[in-house]
C-alpha cells in the first residue's frame, strides 16, 4: 500500500500582499472588529496555559470575551514554558549593534533554513518589541545594568545582543507574568479556569470548531464544553521520543484529536535536537535535562583528538584536544545554531571520540572563561545551571568540564495555520509550539518564548476577532449529535484501554516507541531507516492495543490511564512523522537526510522541489494521509546555502 496520496495544493494562506513591513498593519485594519458589547456574549475555549495559552486567555478576557481555560496540571502556572532558560529575542536594538526588525526577520527566516513564511516571520519580529514592553509592565524581573536599563546578551547563533533574560529562568518569569494576568482575570470572574482537566476530543458542528470533550482528571468525569471558537495552545510533541527535555505530561493529544477531525498537520518531521543536554545515565532515565545554550557563550566544546582517549579531561593537553566547532566553523565557533551543533556532536561520537561512561557525550569546558573572568563572574551568570548539573551528575563543573549530548527539545511542526493562526477547521485557532508557523525547519534560540507570547498577546487577539465578528453562533449543547458522538468516542476509547488488561506497562511501550524514533527519525534519517521505522511502529502499535495493562478504572485519578491515551496518540503521530521525513527528499534545518548532504557533510536543501510546507490531511485510521503543499515564496530573504563557517 502506498504511504500517502497527494491532494490539491494550499492556494491561500490569507496573508496580505504588498511590502512585507506593511502586511500586519493592513491585516489588522482589514480584519473585522467585534464591538465591546458583543464580546460579552461570546465564549472562547483555550486549551493549555503556557506562554501562548496563558497570554491569550488573559488578553481575550481583558478584551471582554468570556474565556474557559483548561490545563492538565494542577495550576496554570506549571505549563512547560516555565522551564525555558535562556531568554527571549526582541529587535529593540538597545545595544546599537546593528539590530533591527528587518535583521531579526532575516535571521529567523535564514535560521529556519528557508522553510517558513516571510509574512509570519516579519510580523513576529515586529511585535517582538511590544512583548518586552508588556512583560516589563507586568513586573517581570529581567536582568538589568547598573544604570537600571535592561541587559541583553547574544544567544544561539545570533551576532547581535538581542536576547533579554532573567538569569537562567526567563521562561519561568515570563510565564508567571502571563499567569498573574490570567489569575487577575480569573479573580474578576472573566475566565473560568479548569485545572487537572484534559481535552480528549474536538467537537465540530456544521464544519466549525464549537467545543471540546474534557476529562476531569480527579473525578474521571467526562463533559462536553462549548464555545464560539476554540484555541489550542497545547504545546509540542517532543515526548513522542519518550526521552526529551519536555515535561513528562507534554503530549500531542489535543492537536492530534483535532487533526483527526480535519485540521491539517504541517511538517511533523521538523524536530529540534538541542545540543546541550545532560547525557543519559541509564535505563531508568525518565527525561533529559537541558543545560541552557547560553552556556555556549563562555563554554568551549571539545573532544579528545584520539579515539577512545579515557584520560581525565584535565590531563589531556591542549594540543590533544579538538575544539571541533571552533575548528569547523571559525566565524561562529561555539555559537553555531542548534541543528549544526547537535549534528557535529553526533559526528564526533560516531567517530569514537565521545566521552563519559556511555561515550555519547562531549565536553563543555569553562576553564578558559573562569581564568579570564573569574569564578565569581561565572557563578553570577550560570550559578543555578551549574548547581543543577552537579545535583544530577554528582560532578562539579567548576572543576571538571560538563558532559553534554543532544536531546529532543522542540517541535517546529504542528497544526497548519493560516496567517490568522486559524487551522483548516474554521473556528479552530492554534498558537505557540502547537502550530507549525514561524520557525521553519529549525528554531533559533530564544525564539520560542517570543513566538508563544507574540501569538498569545498580540496576534491571536486581533485575528480571532475577524472570525468572531460573524458570531455569536447558534447555541449548541451536549445533546447535539456531534457532541454525543465525540463524547461516546472518548468513553469507548478509555474503556477499550482499560479492558485490554495485558502484560506490559504503558511506559514500556512508550520507551520502545521512543527508541525507534530516536534511532530512525532523530538527528539523521535515511530512506531505509524510515521505512523500517514505519513497519516497527505499526507492529508495536498493534502490540500496544493487545498487550498494554492499564490498572484501575476511569472513575477518579488514574495516571496510568492518562498516559495510555497520550501514548496511543503518539503511535499515530510517529507514523506520520516518519512518512513526512521519508517524503522530504532533502535535508533542511532539523531534518537531516543521510542521502542529501554536501561534500562537507552539511545539510543539502532542494529548493526546486521542496520549498513548501507539507500539510497532511487525515483520512481514516490505517489509510494513507493526503499531502497538501503550500508553496513558500521568498521575496526578501533569498535562499542560500546556510553557512556558519
Amino acid at each position, binding site marked *: 500500500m502506498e504511504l500517502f496520496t497527494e491532494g490539491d495544493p494550499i492556494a491561500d494562506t490569507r496573508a496580505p500582499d504588498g511590502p512585507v513591513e506593511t502586511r500586519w498593519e493592513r491585516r489588522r485594519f482589514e480584519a473585522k472588529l467585534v464591538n465591546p458589547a458583543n464580546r460579552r456574549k461570546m465564549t472562547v475555549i483555550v486549551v493549555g496555559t503556557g506562554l501562548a495559552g496563558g497570554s491569550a486567555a488573559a488578553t481575550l478576557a481583558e478584551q471582554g470575551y468570556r474565556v474557559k481555560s483548561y490545563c492538565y496540571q494542577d495550576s496554570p502556572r506549571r505549563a512547560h514554558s516555565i522551564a525555558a532558560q535562556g531568554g527571549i529575542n526582541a529587535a529593540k536594538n538597545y545595544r546599537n549593534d546593528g539590530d533591527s526588525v528587518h535583521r531579526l526577520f532575516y535571521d529567523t527566516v535564514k535560521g529556519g533554513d528557508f522553510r517558513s513564511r516571510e509574512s509570519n516571520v516579519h510580523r513576529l519580529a515586529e511585535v517582538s518589541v511590544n512583548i518586552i514592553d508588556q512583560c516589563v*509592565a507586568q513586573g517581570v524581573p529581567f536582568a538589568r545594568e547598573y544604570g537600571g536599563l535592561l541587559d541583553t546578551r547574544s544567544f544561539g547563533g545570533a551576532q547581535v545582543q538581542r536576547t533579554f533574560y532573567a538569569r537562567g529562568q526567563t521562561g519561568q518569569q515570563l510565564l508567571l507574568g502571563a499567569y498573574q494576568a490570567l489569575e487577575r482575570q480569573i479573580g474578576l470572574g472573566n475566565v473560568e479556569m479548569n485545572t487537572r482537566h484534559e481535552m480528549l476530543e474536538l467537537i465540530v458542528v456544521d464544519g466549525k470548531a464549537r467545543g471540546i470533550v474534557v476529562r476531569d482528571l480527579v473525578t474521571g468525569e467526562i463533559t462536553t464544553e462549548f464555545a464560539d471558537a476554540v484555541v489550542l495552545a497545547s504545546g509540542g510533541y517532543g515526548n513522542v521520543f519518550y526521552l526529551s527535555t519536555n515535561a513528562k505530561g507534554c503530549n500531542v493529544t489535543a492537536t492530534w484529536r483535532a487533526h483527526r477531525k480535519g485540521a491539517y498537520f504541517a511538517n511533523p518531521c521538523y524536530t529540534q535536537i538541542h545540543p546541550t543536554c545532560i547525557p543519559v545515565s*541509564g535505563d531508568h532515565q525518565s527525561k533529559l535535562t537541558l543545560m541552557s545554550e547560553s552556556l555556549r557563550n563562555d563554554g568551549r566544546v571539545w573532544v579528545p583528538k584520539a579515539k577512545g582517549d579515557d584520560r581525565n579531561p584535565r590531563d589531556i593537553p591542549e594540543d590533544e584536544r579538538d575544539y571541533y566547532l571552533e575548528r569547523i566553523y571559525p566565524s561562529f565557533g561555539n555559537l553555531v545554531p542548534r541543528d549544526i551543533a547537535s549534528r557535529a556532536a553526533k559526528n564526533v561520537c560516531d567517530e569514537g571520540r565521545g566521552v563519559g561512561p556511555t561515550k555519547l557525550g562531549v565536553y563543555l569546558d569553562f576553564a578558559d572563561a573562569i581564568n579570564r573572568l573569574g569564578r565569581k563572574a561565572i557563578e553570577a551568570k550560570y550559578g543555578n545551571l551549574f548547581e543543577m548539573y552537579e545535583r544530577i551528575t554528582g560532578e562539579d563543573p567548576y572543576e571538571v568540564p560538563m558532559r553534554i549530548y543532544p536531546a529532543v527539545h522542540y517541535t517546529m511542526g504542528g497544526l497548519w495555520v493560516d496567517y490568522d493562526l486559524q487551522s483548516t477547521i474554521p473556528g479552530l485557532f492554534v498558537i505557540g509550539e502547537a502550530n507549525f508557523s514561524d520557525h521553519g525547519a529549525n528554531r533559533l534560540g530564544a525564539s520560542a518564548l517570543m513566538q508563544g507570547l507574540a501569538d498569545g*498577546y498580540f496576534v491571536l487577539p486581533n485575528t480571532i476577532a475577524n472570525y468572531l465578528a460573524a458570531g455569536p453562533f447558534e447555541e449548541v449543547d451536549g445533546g447535539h449529535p456531534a457532541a454525543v458522538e465525540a463524547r461516546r468516542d472518548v468513553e469507548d476509547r478509555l474503556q477499550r484501554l482499560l479492558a485490554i488488561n495485558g502484560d506490559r506497562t504503558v511506559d514500556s511501550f512508550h520507551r520502545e516507541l521512543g527508541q525507534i524514533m530516536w534511532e530512525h527519525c532523530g538527528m539523521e534519517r535515511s530512506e531505509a531507516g524510515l521505512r523500517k521505522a514505519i513497519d516497527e511502529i505499526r507492529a508495536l502499535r498493534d502490540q500496544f492495543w493487545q498487550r498494554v495493562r492499564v490498572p484501575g478504572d476511569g472513575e477518579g485519578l488514574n495516571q496510568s490511564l492518562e498516559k495510555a491515551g497520550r501514548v496511543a496518540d503518539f503511535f499515530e503521530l510517529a507514523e506520520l512523522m516518519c512518512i513526512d521525513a521519508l517524503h522530504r527528499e532533502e535535508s533542511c534545518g532539523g531534518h537531516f537526510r543521510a542521502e542529501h548532504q554536501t561534500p562537507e557533510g552539511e545539510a543539502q536543501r532542494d529548493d526546486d522541489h521542496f520549498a513548501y510546507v507539507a500539510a497532511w490531511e487525515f483520512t481514516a485510521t490505517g489509510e494513507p494521509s493526503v499531502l497538501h503543499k503550500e508553496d513558500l515564496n521568498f521575496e526578501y530573504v533569498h535562499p542560500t546555502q546556510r553557512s556558519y563557517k
Partner: protein
Amino acid sequence: MNLTLRIWRQSGPEDKGRMVTYQVDDVSPDMSFLEMLDVLNERLILDGDEPIAFDHDCREGICGMCGLMINGDAHGPQRGTTACQLHMRQFSDGDTIDIEPWRARAFPVIKDLVVNRNAFDKIIAAGGYITAPTGSAPEAHSVPVAKANADAAFESAACIGCGACVAACPNGSGMLFTAAKVTQLSLMPQGQPERYTRVIGMVDAHDEAGFGGCTNAGECTVVCPKGIPLTSIGRLNRDYLAATSKRGDTPGT
C-alpha cells in the same frame, strides 16, 4: 542499593489512609528519586497492584508540581533541591525511607501523595499581579529599575509555588509563598500603585483559604528549594501594617 520504602497510600479524600511498606532492590545512585518511584510503579502494575499516585511534570525543579515529604523533610534531605532533582546518591544501601504527601489544612489529599494546591492560585488571583492589560505598556526603558532592586525582586520571583513551605510549617501557613510575590512586586516601580491593596487582598485570601498564621518558626525557608528568604515575610508585614493603618483598620482583621 536496596531500600525499604514506607509510603502513604490513600485511595481518595474520604479514605483514612495508611503507610504501606515496599522493598525496592538494585536502585542506581544515578536515578532521581522519582525515577526510583517509577521503577516501583512499573513493578506494582505488573503485579496487579495500583501504582502510587504522585504529582510531577518538568522533572527539572522548576514547575513546582512535585512535592513529597521524605523522612519528614519537604523535598527530602538535600537543601535547595526539589524531589524531582533529588538523586538516589543521597541515600545509602539498607536505608528505610518514609514518603508522605504535603500535610496541611489548605492542601487536602486527593490520592496517595497527590494534594490539592488550588489555594495558592486563589492568593495570586486576589492581588498577586500588576494590572497592565495587554497593549497598554509604556516603552520598556521608560522606567529604569535599580539593579539591586531588580536582583532582589528576582530572588523572590524565583518561587515555584510547590508548597514545601506550607508542608514544613508547624502552623500550615502559606506566608512565605504570599510574601515572595508581595516582595517581588513591591520592589519594582511598576508594582507601586497597587502595593497596599495587593498585600491586603493576598493576606485576606491566604487566611480564607485555611492557611495558618505565621509565627516566624522559619521552617519554611529551610526547606524552600529556591531559597526564598524569611526576610520577605518581614517585608510583607511592613507593607501590611502600612496598608492597614492607611485604611484605618487594625492589622489582622
